[in-house]
């Protein structure tokens, strides 16, 4: 009975990858210039910064929290770094380190507000979202920052974005994925991450210093947003303060499509990676059949809702297992 039900559950876990394959095949058949290396490369390229944000926020969402600030923190960090090498004369590599530190700092602030001051994550990160957006404009004097070769040197793009015709960013993305998945599945932080998400009070009463771990998790999320800032710069080359707003929702959507539950306690990095790729495939695919950006948003909305409906169905199925198969015989 139980093994049967388990198999059914596993089938449902396969739905996200299956959806990705189906989408890819569908657009390969019906899309113009979709199938092939060029199209594949473009899908990867539009996954970079969303991917970094999504990996980071996956940790947070598994705790049962949310981080609305990642989009603007990404932008703000990139602006701070840009200001450093444009206005302050910092060497670019050092400025990139500053980008990461900025992201980490905002994440740390989120963590402190949520774990120590007990602010609801929604409120704390909403505040940080506005603060970081404003700060980006303030520090740059509302000037656009350039991550083009004249400003960051010829080496920047080949290292972070594309070298020849090879999408280098994909290596970074997969590397980040591997690290995030390792941390989530194999380290103490990852284990506590799930424990906090499924029952924070029980974890605390077991002696887990939940506050500290939560701060660490939000800081990691901020650090990932910082990384996303670098790749955002690499992808767009010009960054206007105020950009980035709304990107957090794309990242969160990718996480949700990947099957991570918004109520916390369950989720996976693989799911998030697939969620990101589904979003990118949809983006490239819809434009390959001649539908513009607003159509992408339109359809992505349906995908998000569909994914959550599926998630609910999966939970209901799991609950049925619970009742149908008592583990104990008297």
């Amino acid at each position, binding site marked *: 009975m139980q093994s049967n039900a388990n198999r059914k559950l596993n089938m449902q876990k396969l739905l996200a990858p299956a959806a990705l394959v189906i989408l890819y095949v569908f657009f390969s058949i019906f899309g113009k210039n979709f199938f092939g290396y060029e199209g594949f490369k473009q899908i990867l390229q539009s996954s970079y910064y969303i991917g970094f944000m999504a990996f980071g926020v996956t940790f947070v969402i598994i705790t049962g929290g949310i981080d609305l600030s990642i989009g603007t923190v990404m932008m703000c960090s990139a602006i701070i770094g840009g200001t450093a090498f444009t206005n302050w004369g910092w060497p670019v590599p050092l400025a990139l380190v500053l980008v990461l530190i900025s992201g980490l700092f905002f994440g740390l602030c989120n963590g402190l507000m949520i774990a120590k001051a007990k602010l609801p994550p929604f409120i704390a990160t909403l505040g940080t979202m506005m603060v970081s957006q404003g700060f980006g404009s303030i520090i740059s004097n509302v000037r656009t920052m350039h991550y083009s070769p004249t400003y960051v040197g010829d080496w920047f793009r080949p290292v972070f974005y594309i070298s020849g015709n090879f999408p280098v960013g994909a290596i970074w993305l997969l590397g980040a994925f591997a690290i995030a998945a390792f941390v989530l599945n194999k380290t103490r932080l990852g284990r506590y991450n799930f424990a906090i998400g*499924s029952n924070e009070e029980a974890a605390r*009463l077991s002696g887990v*210093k939940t506050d500290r771990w939560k701060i660490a998790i939000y800081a990691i999320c901020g650090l990932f947003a910082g990384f996303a800032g670098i790749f955002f710069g690499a992808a767009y080359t010009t960054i206007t303060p105020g950009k980035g707003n709304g990107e957090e929702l794309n990242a969160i959507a990718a996480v949700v499509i990947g099957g991570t539950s918004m109520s916390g306690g369950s989720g996976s990095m693989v799911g998030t990676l697939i969620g990101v790729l589904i979003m990118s495939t949809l983006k490239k695919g819809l434009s390959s059949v001649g539908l513009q950006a607003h159509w992408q948003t339109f359809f992505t909305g349906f995908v998000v809702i569909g994914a959550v409906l599926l998630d609910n169905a999966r939970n209901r199925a799991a609950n049925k297992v619970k009742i149908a198969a008592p583990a104990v015989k008297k």
Partner: protein
Amino acid sequence: MGEVLLQMRGIQKYFPGVHALDDCHFELKSGEVHALVGENGAGKSTMMKVLTGVYQMDAGEILLDGKPVQIHDTRDAQALGISIIHQELNLMKDLTVAENIFIGREPMNGILLNKRKQNEMAAELLSSLSIDISPTTIVGTLTVARQQMVEIAKALSYDNTRILIMDEPSAALTESEIEELFRFIRDLKARGVGIVYISHRMGELKEISDRITVMRDGQYIGTVNTAEVTMDEIIRMMVGRVIYEQPKEKSNVPPDAPIVLEARHLLSKDVKDVSFVLHKGEILGFAGLMGAGRTETARLVSGADKRLGGEILVNGKEVNIQTPADAVKAGIGYLSEDRKRYGLCLPLSVADNTVMATLHHFLKGSVVNDKKIREVSHTYREQINIKTPSVDTKVVSLSGGNQQKVVLAKWLVRDCDILIFDEPTRGIDVGAKSEIYKLMNRLVAEGKSIIMISSELPELLRMSDRIIVMCEGVKTGEMDISEATQEKIMALAAPRI
């Protein structure tokens, strides 16, 4: 007594891992007070929840006036004239008596409330029940007993109410208030209402009930006419021979056993200057009524709540317990009365929960050593007999008794020497109960020390070496097991008025 109103026959109800109701019967006549008794977890409330549509039965039938009826939700029950008065009253304290009675079906004048009519209707209802309360009184200003009458009046204001279920109606009342309640119940009887009366107080049953149905461990034991039985016979039916052996005769702790835990003048909002000591190898029972401050005391000792004053000494040395992490470090493990909320991460596996307090011992560098975790979990699964298909099974799918054992395993892996069991057998079926008892005895034999909080006196008398009684946040007594009796404990636990 009139004709048969209600019959429940062959009721079956399953919960995960628990057969909650096994072929249960109940019958109610009009104008009858039918008491439903049994120990905690006997299935009384489950039975009543089936009747009021909160739970769906898995098999069996319910007949009203001899005709089978389907009760799918609480609204169905109400439409059939079945009302329940819960132990915790469901009144809106800031509204008036009349507003509470007619909430959701207020008399209207077009789109406006007709307050005057509402008050008139309430006044009429209250006087017909000889309740001397003004309809415009704010409910929160009434005593609990009078609030209860308002609640009953509300139930009876539904014209068709013929079956009234009262869940421990006397629990919060004083002697004289109980007298008032009984007068009122006799009135209702005369009006032909059938009353299901759930209570733990034996003396009361003799006075108010016509018949008594006894349940035990989810099974129907029997129905008797109150006039024809003694209370001893009822108690015997309730407890059976299964769980409660003889109370412990004398303490198993040698007089020179060292003190492992000492609490001095613990103070918080709900705990008033409580001091006690715990010896090595001792089971120290904490008795008291709900809200006596026992759990709150345990939460102070285990660092779950911040204390306002007092000291805690472990093995003679003062330890500064501010957080649960501090308590765990000092070797104090707390098994909460509400294990689902405070003890377990239900969606995680048995293994993950087993090492929740000790994950730092299972690291290779910074990597979690899952192989070792599974090995250790497996060892404890064997050792304390956790019945689970595997250690990878999610805890949510285990029965209550086995969930309790997983919490215990968590503290045993941590090697806690002081274990606080808060209502360790609540919601656990008989077999698992005696297994938990055996485990506790084994643990103290191995040199651990246990604080046991329980609301079941026989359980305390059977397990404890010494008993502390609390009432309203104050320690009211302490006795060696050799001199402890139910009567003595109850006298100390009952609030003085």
